[in-house]
């Protein structure tokens, strides 16, 4: 396959940056998207130019490190798929692809396609935990939890914190991330106790970081590689509303 790639290059956080065009003439349709970038980087190294910086780690769709805006869609056109699990057979010979980093004030670009997502960590630090000591891992079935409830908690816990929801949102809102992180705790007995305070603390930290507000367009759900439902956002709103009128 022949591809034309328009890739965002930016030396550092201060640099203005811009799109740079590269040609690849021999892309295998069986390559993953990141392998295709590896090939391009080897070309660049051979030519003695700086390779393109991009985030990646597990390359099996579970770590949430890869973060590429591919032709206007986070992680590319395949539903429920991270960029590392996206294969070049998705595209056609002769395609032109634009590759950009996540864009959000709360995700500043570090270099090229790499963004700083520690704002997510600070949201977790604000409330994405259970503050009582629950001891070691409990024996299986020691605390009975209905299967349906455990499944909902697991659906939320599938969030890998990649930030595709923020990247897709027209407001760069982190609501789906916050809702998933609050939701997987809130559906289990250990986490349920603090769910109202948690909703408040995490939402306020999200605002502090400069993420936008939710307009209920649901592009986040569509972009999420783990297909996390916006129902969790409604739940977060519910917990926040209840927390607003209860407690101290």
């Amino acid at each position, binding site marked *: 396959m022949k591809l034309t790639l*328009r890739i*965002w290059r930016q030396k550092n956080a201060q640099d203005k940056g811009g*799109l740079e065009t590269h040609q690849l003439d021999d892309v295998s349709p069986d390559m993953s998207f990141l392998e295709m970038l590896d090939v391009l980087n080897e070309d660049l190294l051979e030519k003695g130019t700086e390779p393109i910086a991009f985030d990646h780690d597990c390359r099996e769709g579970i770590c949430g490190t890869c973060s590429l*805006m591919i*032709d*206007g*869609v986070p992680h590319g056109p395949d539903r429920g798929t991270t960029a590392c699990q996206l294969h070049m057979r998705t595209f056609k010979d002769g395609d032109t692809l*634009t590759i*950009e980093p996540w*864009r*959000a*004030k*709360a995700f500043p*670009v570090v270099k090229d396609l790499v963004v700083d997502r520690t704002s997510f960590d600070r949201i977790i630090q604000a409330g994405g935990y259970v503050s009582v000591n629950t001891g070691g891992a409990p024996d299986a079935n020691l605390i009975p939890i209905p299967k349906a409830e455990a499944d909902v908690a697991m659906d939320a816990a599938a969030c890998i914190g990649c930030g595709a929801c923020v990247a*897709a949102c*027209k*407001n*760069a*809102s982190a*609501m789906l991330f916050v809702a998933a992180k609050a939701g997987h705790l809130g559906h289990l007995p250990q986490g349920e106790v603090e769910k109202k305070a948690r909703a*408040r603390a995490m*939402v*306020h930290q*999200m*605002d502090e970081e*400069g*993420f*936008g*507000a*939710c*307009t*209920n*367009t*649901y*592009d986040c*759900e*569509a*972009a999420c590689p783990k297909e996390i*439902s*916006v*129902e969790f*956002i*409604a*739940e*977060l*709103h*519910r*917990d*926040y*509303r209840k*927390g*607003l009128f209860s407690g101290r």
Partner: protein
Amino acid sequence: MNWLLRGLRSSVGLKFVMAVTGLLLFGFVLAHLAGNLQIFAGADQLNGYAKSLQDLGPLLWVARGGLLAIFVLHVGTGVMLARRNRAARGTPYAVQKAIDSTHASRAMVSTGVVVMIFVVYHLMHFTLGVGIRPEFHDWTDPQGRHDVYSMVVAGFQQLPIALFYIVSMLGLGVHLSHGLASMFQSLGWNQPKYRSFTRLLGIGITAVIILGNISMPVAAQFGLIELPEWNPLVNGGN
């Protein structure tokens, strides 16, 4: 009360304000439509209804004041959210595609502006009677009541005004189609089993609002409602 203000100033709190004020404004739009549709029952019915509203006296001003406050809160909160949301992106994408989002959900600011321009025009046109043919506003019917019926028919018989109303109502409909369904989500009322219901409700109510409101300018344009014989325009006056 600090807890309330702080809570309502967050991104989620502002959405609560949007949802609640939006619901109240929507209630007004429905009631307003129900009132206006009486035009099809004739001049006597509509003018009588208008008089009963005028006769509320001070209560009418309380209602108007409340409505204005809700409107200002809705628009003000919307502006605050839109500014925050714009700032949250920072550098724009070279290419960004909508995936599942509807046009209506992405165009809330623009359709909101359409509605706001319309409201200002509409108030000048019918309520205040300034700027746009103020003499229409002084008409009375044989019982000496303010002749709302003639004012509406004469207004809507003019093609540009009728078109402006129709386009504005389409804007309002698009705004409500997202706003109503969105309200359930923002207030945390949305549950998986309600999802198809809220979506249908948004579309259904929108259709009622659009069709109901545009039926009046359309009827005037096609001569289905006409000026009463007592109106000065009928005998080649004005």
